[in-house]
């Protein structure tokens, strides 16, 4: 085998399971000279990922063909942007570490209302204990001169309001919680 020496230097590093929607891929990554050998469901690709613009943009070379890619970690998923399209992928090492989620998830009757963007709370339209219908405005936010109504995702009673007008919030911050019956 001509590349026997190289084979010796490569070693199995990690097995991943990568999930996107209904698609599931078994992925095996080996480190080789000048890049990675990545096998997806048995098919091997030569892959190199080089940092282009910190911290999110890379040059991705697959079997010698290079293209820019943007990769952002958001919670437990990776958002991979290639061309104009975005792919949301969950990556888990296959050595079975118990999956997060089921145990930590709050009860289905408790709904969190979160800020979809960073910004300023302009108004709070509901109080603790108040009954809200699905689609009712709970909070009004503002960022970059744009105002947005944050609505109740379901009908129920407001358990807590965690923000007040004039307060700055981060993206994903919990604004209120809702008890559904």
């Amino acid at each position, binding site marked *: 085998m001509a590349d026997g020496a190289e084979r010796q230097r490569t070693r199995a*590093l*990690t097995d*991943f399971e*990568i999930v*996107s929607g209904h*698609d599931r*891929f078994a*992925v095996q990554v080996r*480190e080789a000279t*000048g890049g*990675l050998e*990545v096998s*997806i469901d048995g098919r091997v*690709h030569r*892959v*190199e*990922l*080089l*940092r*282009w*613009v*910190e*911290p*999110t*943009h*890379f*040059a*991705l*070379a697959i079997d*010698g063909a*290079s*293209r*820019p890619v*943007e*990769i952002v970690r958001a919670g437990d998923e*990776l958002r*991979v*942007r*290639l*061309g*104009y*399209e*975005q*792919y949301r*992928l969950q*990556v888990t*090492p296959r050595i079975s570490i118990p999956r997060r989620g089921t145990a930590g998830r709050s009860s289905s009757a408790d709904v969190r209302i979160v800020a*979809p*963007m*960073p*910004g300023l709370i*302009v108004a709070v339209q509901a109080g603790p204990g108040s009954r809200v219908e699905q689609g009712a405005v709970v909070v009004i936010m*503002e*960022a*970059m*001169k*744009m*105002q947005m*109504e944050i609505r109740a995702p379901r009908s129920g009673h407001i358990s807590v309001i965690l923000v007040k007008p004039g307060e700055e919030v981060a*993206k994903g911050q919990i604004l209120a919680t809702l008890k559904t019956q």
Partner: protein
Amino acid sequence: MSAYSVLIANRGEIAVRIVRSCHELGFRAVAVYSPVDRRARHVILSDEAYALPGNEPAASYLNSAALLEIARRARVNAVHPGYGFLSENPAFAAACQESGVTFVGPPSSVLAECGDKARTRERLVQAGVPVLPGTNAVSDEDARAAAARVGFPLLIKASGGGGGKGIHLVRSAGELPSMLRLARGEARTAFGDDRVYLERWLPDARHIEVQILADTHGRIAAVGERDCSVQRRHQKLIEETPAPGLTPSMQRRLLQAAETGARKLGYVNAGTFEFLVQGDEYYFLEVNARLQVEHPVTELVTGMDLVVQQFRVARREALSIEVPISPRGHAIECRISAEDPHEGFLPSTGTVGGLAEPGGPGIRVDSALSPGMEVTRYYDPLLAKVIAWGTTRGEALARMRQALLETAVGGIATTVPFHLWALNDPAFVAGNHDTRFVRGWDEREPRGDLIPAVLAAAAFEQAEGRRLRFPPDTRNGGWRRAAKDESVDRF
């Protein structure tokens, strides 16, 4: 004798743009900055800079008292307001003139008239220019009846506004109260004036505007048109000139209507007359009594520097333009904003990491970006504009596609993916699009091939998981390195 000096009462890419023309003319450029803009590009490039007391627009770039005080302390000859903020504020223009400082824009009286959108429409009707049905400023109580008269769908627009802020589409009477509240809220924040009016909306029209230049010697020139039909929530995303598919006769009618309107209003300095065009009909919408965001496309095809012309007019010199204006080639602009097209164009804030800006033949970049810069919630999300010129529309589009691939703003989600999609969309490439075009982005079919994304994710996790440091020499030149390695592999 000290140089003519100009206070730039703005921030971001437009402040950088104005500094450039100031320096070209040998003027001293005086910048202002809010605390978060302390190290912004316009401040670094200016000759002198003054702090504004707060970050909120009202405390900073809308703070006319502080700006006038700085104008006095810095002994400037003129104030250039850019676009947005105080650019169309008649009281600010008047206050500048009263304190002996030239306001680079229309006279206060013209700003007042153009700011009263309903009144402007009336004046243009008198001049024989067609307009859409609309109202004067409405109260919440009168809105329902007024809306019924105008007809649905309609738009709520800010009386004191512009730049698409505070505009909301209302499809039916049921949506009216909620949209009125949002529109008033935005109008109050953006313009310090919560008056709104209603105007009929044509969903499948094209948005075409005409650049006007007028001097104090009675000369008015309609410099050319721009197609701004690619809009989302009435925020323009892509602009180009000449307008694709516009018949020469319609183009003549629009230029003529704008010139007639400018004469009727006694217009002076640079301004834009906006129209909706549907088939053989056109309707005047409003005047943007300032320099427009998208002015570079006109500059690229005419070779004119509109900011330089603004300074000439402000100094009561004659316009220096050759008539007839004969535009050359085609120019297109993509607005690079801190909005995530994959998340419904929600604002994206944070710290800019690294930065890659495009170049090459026919490419111009007007940008406020610098590495380490904070993108905050306080101001408009526009970060930069990429403008491409070509001898034909096809060439301009091809150059833009390449430029977009070269553009990267590290750590901040931007509108670049949307532009890549638009520039490859068959309707856009054919020039058949109208103001509904952006809906196609939300309705597009996701592309099938997941494999490259899966490979990217695996390689990323591999590096992260082993906490591998990327070799330092690839940090900035990684893209080039990749190309080199590829050619090495082949031999």
